[in-house]
């Protein structure tokens, strides 16, 4: 962005490309699992970033308040083209859903539950479950490297789903434990100290 080598026109083109990519995700990711759509489009299809960076940014998005997918779009956009890229990405991903929810709000009185829509959504929900689960598995395969990591995954799930700890508390507790584990068991190979 700050590079003088890049002309204004090239910058505008790049921003339009980013906005367009996130707009498509924002318009097609029905039924939840936006993270899966983001990974497929941004990492796999366009190759704009790799799984490692994607997970890193996902971690930041999940650690902070806000809608996970919106935060992640913001961070991806920032990495791609700075502040303008961040704004283009978050605007793109939010616009379709926001427009739709505006219409739903305005038309609330005339809206009726339609059996066919209900039936479709009954099929969409488990599809979203499969989608998120598969994406979680793929991300796990790309980022988890030892048994301890798998245990921390399991521990997080137990804390949230079984012990019903709040997410921030689970994050703090398990996160701290995992960080200390990695501090004391030594850094991975090739790490600069």
């Amino acid at each position: 962005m700050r590079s003088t080598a890049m002309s204004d026109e090239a910058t505008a083109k790049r921003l339009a490309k980013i906005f367009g990519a996130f707009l498509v995700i924002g318009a097609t990711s029905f039924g939840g699992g936006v993270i899966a759509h983001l990974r497929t489009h941004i990492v796999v299809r366009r190759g704009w970033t790799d799984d490692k960076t994607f997970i890193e940014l996902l971690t930041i998005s999940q650690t902070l308040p806000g809608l996970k997918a919106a935060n992640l779009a913001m961070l991806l956009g920032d990495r791609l083209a700075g502040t303008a890229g961040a704004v283009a990405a978050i605007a793109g991903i939010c616009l379709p859903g926001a427009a739709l929810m505006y219409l739903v709000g305005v038309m609330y009185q005339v809206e009726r539950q339609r059996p066919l829509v209900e039936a479709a959504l009954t099929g969409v929900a488990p599809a979203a479950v499969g989608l998120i689960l598969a994406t979680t598995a793929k991300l796990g395969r790309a980022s988890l490297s030892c048994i301890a990591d798998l245990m921390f995954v399991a521990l997080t799930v137990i804390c949230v789903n079984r012990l019903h700890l709040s997410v921030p508390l689970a994050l703090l507790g398990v996160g701290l434990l995992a960080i200390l584990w990695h501090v004391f068991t030594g850094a991975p190979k090739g790490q600069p100290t």
Partner: protein
Amino acid sequence: MMDDLVALGRVFAYLSLMTLGGGIAIYPELNKLVVDGHGWLTLPQLDYLYGVGQAAPGPNLMVVSVGALTAGLPGALSVLVAFVGPPALLALVVGRVWSKLQGRPWFVATQRGLTPVSIGLLLAGCLTFAKGALTGWTTVLIGAVVFFVVLRTNINPAAMVLAGAVAGILAFGLH
């Protein structure tokens, strides 16, 4: 009108920072403020809109419809900006600080430690969602098929969701 907009902005900026751990985390607080506190919506309205927001594409922006119901387009816009803006700004700042810290001795340990927790949170959210979504063998089958196809291929997820919708209509909508 102006009072409504200011109140909407204030309430949703506050709520936006309460969304730690996913949109559903604010539901009790949303209920308290929007239904009980300001009376902008009734509880059935809120439940319905939340469900629609979950099914709508992109992040769940059901809060926009609360703004629309209360104060039309200006209401929707002020809610959108108030709800998405503060966390996004925070994410931007933290993201930049984060990339500056790269290479510090404790940074790698922090990153490696938080990654499994991040994956775990994704899994936990998915399992919670699954409880409501997997209601019988048909839905389990849909979920399993999508899982294996997505795991094995790089198919556009939208195609799988569409397939789920068609399967849902065929299984539940035609009698």
